[in-house]
């Protein structure tokens, strides 16, 4: 059976849709075909009086029909899901092209301006414009890095080390880096970090990326207050970031770690990210042996956390 499936290239097709085999329309159509052939044969058997007990045959046909309806239902559902994935991918292209174009356009505008208004530019304003170019370049770099990380991750060539790291120090360092940025947004970051060292087994580089990501999200959606806490009990080490933003609508919560997914809350928050951050964070944390999750209440805020087993 497996060989037969491989012959049909079903696995490959299903991978293309990024759906498990049993949800893949091609596979379901195959089953549907087999069942229909069964029903036709059974009907013929009755018609030709090959089978004496009509009731048994009827029962078989009935149960097969019921089964058929179920398969049918699954097929429709799987088509819907496929449409969802394509929609997400289209959204992604839409978003990513905007995101990639914005810093490039900004830089081009600044350069154009600088070259046409040469006479009027003082050293002070010149510095400002150079800083703007730097900032935009940094944005571009971060986005390209994210995209490349996802590509590497999916190709299975992403290097992830496992070593003892002091999570407390990393968190402290991150908060320091974010201090100016959060102040510029008028957001207060409240940190609860224990005195003693907290060790986990992970890759410090990727750990930093994940923390950056969670902080970025919290700051993006917050209305003025973000809480960060690091804690431990006898089994786990827990890092949490809580914001007081709009929260995630319940029916969208199951998609939150999906690639390209962005909450559609009517505002333009969605278009300021790449839809890759949380997807990447989940993959990275899981690869390092931790867990990641969230709880969110609509209009009240979200709490994103990751945890590692204690060593």
């Amino acid at each position, binding site marked *: 059976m497996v060989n037969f499936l491989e012959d049909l290239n079903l696995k490959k097709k299903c991978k293309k849709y990024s759906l498990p085999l049993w949800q893949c329309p091609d596979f379901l159509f195959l089953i549907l075909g087999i069942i229909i052939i069964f029903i036709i044969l059974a009907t013929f058997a009755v018609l030709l009086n090959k089978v004496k007990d009509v009731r048994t045959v009827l029962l078989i046909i009935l149960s097969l029909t019921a089964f058929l309806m179920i398969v049918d239902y699954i097929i429709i559902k799987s088509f819907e899901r496929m449409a969802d994935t394509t929609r997400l991918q289209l959204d992604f292209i*839409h978003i990513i*092209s905007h995101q990639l174009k914005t810093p490039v356009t900004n830089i081009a505008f600044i350069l*154009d*301006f600088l070259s046409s*208004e040469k006479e009027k530019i003082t050293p002070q304003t010149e510095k*400002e*414009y150079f800083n703007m170019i730097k900032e935009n370049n940094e944005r571009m770099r971060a986005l390209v890095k994210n995209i490349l990380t996802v590509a590497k991750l999916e190709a299975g060539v992403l290097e992830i080390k496992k070593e003892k790291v002091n999570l407390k120090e990393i968190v402290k360092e991150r908060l320091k880096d974010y201090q100016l940025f959060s102040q510029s947004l008028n957001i207060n970051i409240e940190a609860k970090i224990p005195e003693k060292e907290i060790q986990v087994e992970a890759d410090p580089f990727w750990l930093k990326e994940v923390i950056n990501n969670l902080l970025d999200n919290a700051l993006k959606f917050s209305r003025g207050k973000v809480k960060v806490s690091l804690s431990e009990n006898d089994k786990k080490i827990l890092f949490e970031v809580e914001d007081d933003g709009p929260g995630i609508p319940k029916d969208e919560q199951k998609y939150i770690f999906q690639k390209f997914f962005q909450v559609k809350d009517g505002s*333009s928050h969605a*278009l*300021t990210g790449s839809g890759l951050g949380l997807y990447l964070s989940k993959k990275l944390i899981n690869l390092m042996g931790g867990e990641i999750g969230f709880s969110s209440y609509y209009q009240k805020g979200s709490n994103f956390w990751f945890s590692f087993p204690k060593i």
Partner: protein
Amino acid sequence: MVSPLIIKKVLIFGFLSLKFNMSKKILFIEDEFSLQRTIGELLRKEGYEVFSSLDGKSGVEIAKKEKPDLILLDLILPHLSGFEVLEELKKEESTKEIPVIVLTNLEGLEDVQRALELGALFYLVKSNYTPQEIVEKVNEFFK
């Protein structure tokens, strides 16, 4: 009787405002600081009075208060998106008639259609223009 001096002053003022577009107010709603600086500066140089707004919400407020002659609007904005800003502007009697030029990097057909349906006059994709060309478009509009 009005003194000739005042008449002269009024005349000179009128002449100046004609030449430097003094009477034209432009509201520029854009969250990218670098664009606010470059395009804003060029527009000011042309003699327009430019009001800057870095987000949708304050953009709508300024529009209601200042009644600009033209609004340049980005679509991706904090607090209220450009689409929502358009909706808000069209709702209000006092801002309904203000012409809006959309200036964005979104170029999906759906976005263009939506913006035009909501009452935008033109739809300019930033990456297709230089800042000088955008200023020229604004000048053309006022001609």
